[in-house]
């Protein structure tokens, strides 16, 4: 009787250990898979989808391919359009989540481009595979004197600003709209606390002058943390109207579309 009871107890313990072992094995496997997904798979899939969405949007804006000028096809730089403040279009307001521009940063990769949408809502803009970069509604409109500020993830959800720390002085940042390309030159980076909304001011830092068109890019810092924010400041360089063709540096992205 006692032997039978002991045997049943041993079987029960053995079964419990078996289940515990399987559960531990499963949890370990899921954690490993999550790390693979989080650090590699998700960014590739979402980033690719965001890139594709941006490319499609640009295609929609493109007029039927005009005949390229000899200087454009020879690979030499397109003449830099003169800066005439009266000819820089100012984009009007947009509804929340509306895609209105694309962001092209050669430093982030030769094929890099992302959609800029209105608002910084995580669900509809920042985490979306169709957008990825969000414009702070309280900041200046594109083309307006002041600070055009955008936010994007540095890790996960396509990580549009994964390479933000690699920007170098003078790097060009292009913002494409149906009218053409707003070209900014990267100036400097700052690290601030999450509540430092001064970075959205028309003149966010003393190192920048008033009365300029600025581009401010914000993301989390350090990577995989939201303890701080990394802020990249750029100043407006020139506007390239679509009629003059695609700026030489990013011509490869728009071959056959503009």
């Amino acid at each position: 009787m006692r032997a039978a009871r002991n045997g049943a107890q041993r079987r029960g313990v053995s079964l419990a250990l078996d289940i515990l072992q399987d559960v531990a094995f499963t949890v370990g496997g899921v954690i490993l898979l999550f790390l693979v997904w989080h650090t590699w798979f998700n960014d590739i899939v979402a980033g690719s989808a965001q890139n594709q969405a941006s490319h499609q949007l640009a295609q929609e804006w493109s007029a039927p391919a005009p005949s390229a000028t000899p200087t454009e096809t020879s690979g030499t730089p397109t003449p830099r359009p003169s800066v005439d403040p009266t000819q820089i279009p100012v984009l009007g307001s947009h509804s929340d989540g509306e895609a209105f521009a694309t962001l092209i940063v050669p430093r982030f990769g030769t094929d890099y481009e992302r959609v800029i949408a209105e608002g910084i809502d995580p669900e509809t803009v920042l985490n979306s595979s169709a957008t990825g970069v969000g414009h702070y509604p309280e900041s200046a409109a594109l083309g307006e004197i002041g600070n055009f500020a955008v936010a994007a993830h540095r890790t996960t959800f396509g990580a549009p600003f994964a390479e933000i720390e690699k920007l170098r002085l003078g790097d060009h940042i292009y913002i494409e709209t149906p009218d053409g390309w707003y070209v900014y030159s990267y100036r400097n980076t700052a690290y601030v606390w999450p509540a430092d909304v001064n970075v959205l001011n028309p003149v966010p830092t003393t190192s920048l002058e008033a009365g300029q068109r600025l581009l401010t890019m914000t993301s989390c810092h350090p990577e995989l943390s939201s303890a701080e924010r990394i802020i990249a400041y750029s100043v407006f360089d020139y506007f390239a109207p679509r009629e003059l063709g695609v700026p030489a540096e990013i011509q490869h992205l728009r071959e056959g579309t503009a």
Partner: protein
Amino acid sequence: MYRLLWRALPGNLWAKIAQTTGLLLVAVTALFLWVFPWFVATFMTTNVTVN
């Protein structure tokens, strides 16, 4: 748990291996496409904005 599942799978060794591989693929696909995105969106989204 896994032992019981292995025993419950029909067929010879190779058939069991093929079925196990299929089940693993289904599980990984479900995790990658639905479970992990939901988990991150719900519990792990890092804030990238200043506010």
